[in-house]
């Protein structure tokens, strides 16, 4: 009996005391599902029961991008207590960097057929490419920008904010102001990012057409791999000494500072790391949905990310991923059935989760496990006596 118990016990799943230790099995599960879905799309005929349509693949890819974004928020909110209401800004900046690369790839296939300038610039009577568009036709330059621009913004913003010890709700409000200011700026045509309409009509990426099923599968798998990588890396970082200091800052910043840690430096680097993840998520998102526009900067989007994390359970890494996928799946279903109902549901979700489910789904899961373990302990005691 005890042998069976040890085989089927779930203890190996929650080894250690941190909830984040479920990461490895989750990554495995994620990869298995990804490859299974891809296989079902490519190898099975369209009329098979197990066939997965390309639409579903793209949808799943989109969810995984959101999951990565939620992960970025979870890292700073769940582990460091910094509630950023402006993470959509980093996501959008990464997306714009990718969008610029894709825009340059269109070449002379645009409506105006100008080999150098994207359509909207021709439309605005611009004669030459602005300096910040130079070099964006190189994939590697664009990829560097995807990480660099959000990272740099996060560094400057974080350095200013954490150095002067702006914390709590004040920080939340100014991050919201940041994304709002960017929203207003990107709406302007003079900024050179396509204004209101943003960047769209992409044709291909690295020479592969974006309309092809295989390209879409490739993007989906890339997203899943990146998400797995980020999950593992974040798990490692938060397990390390650095991560322990971060959690210490969350639980008592003053104490951590008095002990001798330069808390603002830890916070800035964590913030930058999180912003880069958000930027990468944005870059993966844009080729899959085919458009990036200033709407991504809207403060409401950024707050929505926070609720994904809250639903999944903050400070758990995989909770954020699960929350993002669940909420977005619900959104897809809801908006299809009754479009008006979605905002009611989302609003109610905000209220109910904060009131009754402060630890999210992962918290529920833990509670359930705990109770079962306790029952088991009681059983063992009874048989012993």
């Amino acid at each position, binding site marked *: 009996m005890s042998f069976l118990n040890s085989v089927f016990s779930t203890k190996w799943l929650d080894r250690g005391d941190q909830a984040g230790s479920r990461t490895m099995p989750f990554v495995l599960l994620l990869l298995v599902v990804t490859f299974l879905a891809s296989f079902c799309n490519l190898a099975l005929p369209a009329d098979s029961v197990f066939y997965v349509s390309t639409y579903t693949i793209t949808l799943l890819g989109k969810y995984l991008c959101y999951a990565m974004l939620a992960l970025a928020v979870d890292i700073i909110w769940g582990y460091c207590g910094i509630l950023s209401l402006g993470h959509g800004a980093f996501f959008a900046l990464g997306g714009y960097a990718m969008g610029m690369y894709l825009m340059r790839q269109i070449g002379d296939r645009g409506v105006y057929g100008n080999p150098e300038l994207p359509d909207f610039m021709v439309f605005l009577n611009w004669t030459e490419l602005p300096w910040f568009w130079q070099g964006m036709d190189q994939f590697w330059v664009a990829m560097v920008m995807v990480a660099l621009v959000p990272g740099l913004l996060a560094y400057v913003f974080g350095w200013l904010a954490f150095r002067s010890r702006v914390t*709590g709700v004040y920080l939340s409000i*100014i991050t919201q*102001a940041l994304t709002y200011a960017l929203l207003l700026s990107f709406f*302007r045509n003079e900024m050179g990012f396509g204004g209101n309409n943003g960047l769209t009509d992409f044709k291909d990426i690295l020479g592969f057409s974006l309309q092809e099923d295989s390209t879409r599968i490739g993007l989906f798998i890339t997203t899943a791999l990146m998400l797995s990588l980020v999950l593992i890396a974040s798990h490692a970082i938060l397990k390390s000494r650095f991560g322990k200091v971060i959690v210490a800052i969350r639980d008592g910043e003053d104490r951590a500072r008095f002990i001798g840690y330069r808390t603002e430096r830890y916070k800035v680097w964590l913030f930058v790391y999180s912003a880069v993840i958000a930027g990468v998520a944005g870059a993966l998102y844009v080729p899959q949905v085919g458009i990036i526009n200033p709407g991504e900067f809207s403060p409401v989007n950024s707050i929505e990310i926070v*609720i994904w994390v809250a639903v999944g359970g903050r400070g758990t890494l995989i909770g954020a991923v699960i929350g993002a996928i669940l909420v977005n799946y619900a959104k897809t279903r809801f908006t299809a059935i009754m479009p*008006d109902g979605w905002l009611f549901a989302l*609003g109610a979700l*905000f*209220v109910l989760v*904060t009131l009754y489910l402060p630890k999210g789904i992962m918290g529920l899961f833990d509670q359930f496990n705990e109770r079962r373990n306790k029952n088991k302990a009681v059983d063992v005691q009874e048989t012993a006596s």
Partner: protein
Amino acid sequence: MRNSLIILACLLSMLLSTAHASSDKSTQALLIELTTVKLNKAIPVLKALEENDGDKMLPLFNTLLKGQLYYVKSNKDLLSIEKVDGKKEYTDVFSGEALEPLATKLTKKIRVNNKLRRFLRDSIARIQLSSSEPESREKALISLLSQLDESTINTIRSLKVNESNTSVIELMDVAIAMYALSNSAEATERLQAVRTLDGRLENEVRNLLVSTVKNEADIKVKAAAEKSLASLEDRIENYQFVNKLFFGLSLGSVLLLAAVGLAITFGVMGVINMAHGEMIMLGAYTTYVVQMMMPNAIDYSLWVAIPLAFLVSGSVGVLIERGVIRHLHGRPLETLLATFGISLILQQLVRTIFSPLNRQVESPTWMSGSLDINPVLSLTLNRLYILAFALLVFGLLLLILNRTSLGLNVRAVAQNRNMAKAMGIRTDRVDAMTFGLGSGIAGMAGVALSQLTNVGPNLGQAYIIDSFMVVVFGGVGNLWGTLVAAFTLGIANKFIEPITGAVLASIIVLVFIILFIQKRPKGLFPQKGRAAE
């Protein structure tokens, strides 16, 4: 302009219908004669009409001048046909009422030539200048300034003799001087004219002086014109500065109204209410509903709407506090999320009930129009009233917080919750009341905003970030700070706007605040002593 003409025409038609009933045959006959008379013999008919019925003929003359006067061939009825966006619009000449469209061949146009046009213009000027209201005489004169010709000047000269109103006489002098400056051959007369024009602010005077400086041959006249133009530009610049200041104050008053409620809930209670914007929206919709309920008394509807909006938003606020915020005490970030959820629900609720479209709220007549101080500076009345209203609300709030027992309790709880509780203050009741007060004030802000913009489900969203900025900039927990911050940001915004454009101006202000908070995290006027943690 068109609207006012229509209103005028409506009034006239009422007069006319009684006139028709009496034995005013000759006007009727003249109007029929107008449809048949030859082009070169039309002037006597028109003259007779003017003498006969004076200002009642104004719409007729205007229509004829625009070449839109037609008559129905069968019964010689006059009507106006105007092409708007390629579509013909048929209206009654006198009443301005829309008529049934007629087939093109059933109507015939009454033609006009240049001679007739000149006569009509003079005649219209004569009719308007001899109006019994000094204000409408003044308006008529100002509209004439851009199209002065000899016959108009002669009319003005002849009317000046009997004029009693001083400002009308001054304007008449301006008109005569302007005519003299541009037409007189004598340099001395022109110099005299420039002297008369000195100190006037009308746009037409300015244009004339500019062209005089450019084209004048006589050195003395040119020098005089240059001098008065320079002083004119100076004064215009000053007035434009005042104008900008006024718009800044106006924006500031809107920000103050939107933010002062937040200053209480956020500043005094420490609660982040993301649904604050929706409290404003509820107030605006209350105004809309009140107007729907009393469509015949728009002028008084605001007096009903203001207290009602306070009650509606206030009670929703109390409900939110009792139902949600109370349970999240001491967890500000969770409060932020929960109230954001509430804001989504409220927005969608309004969208479901009132449709997602914007609703227009009518302004009462005593709020429309403007206070014309001079031709360059005119302050719109609704903005002026809202400025006064904002200051009034602010004053009332200060009074409540500083002079009532509720205010005393609120301040005590804000300073030290546990101590206040120990002294026997029912803190949970005080919390609910404070939140209700803040939300109610947001509702009143909504009434004011409904007078400036359209009322829509997203109304609150537009102000929430700005309101937070004002409160944080001014220093949390400090009402005076909120006042200073609101007006500073409003004025700064309006002064940057002409240089950079509206969007960039708000971006600059946002970035400025973000940087400011880094420098002084506690705002302009931080709380000192024990209250500050």
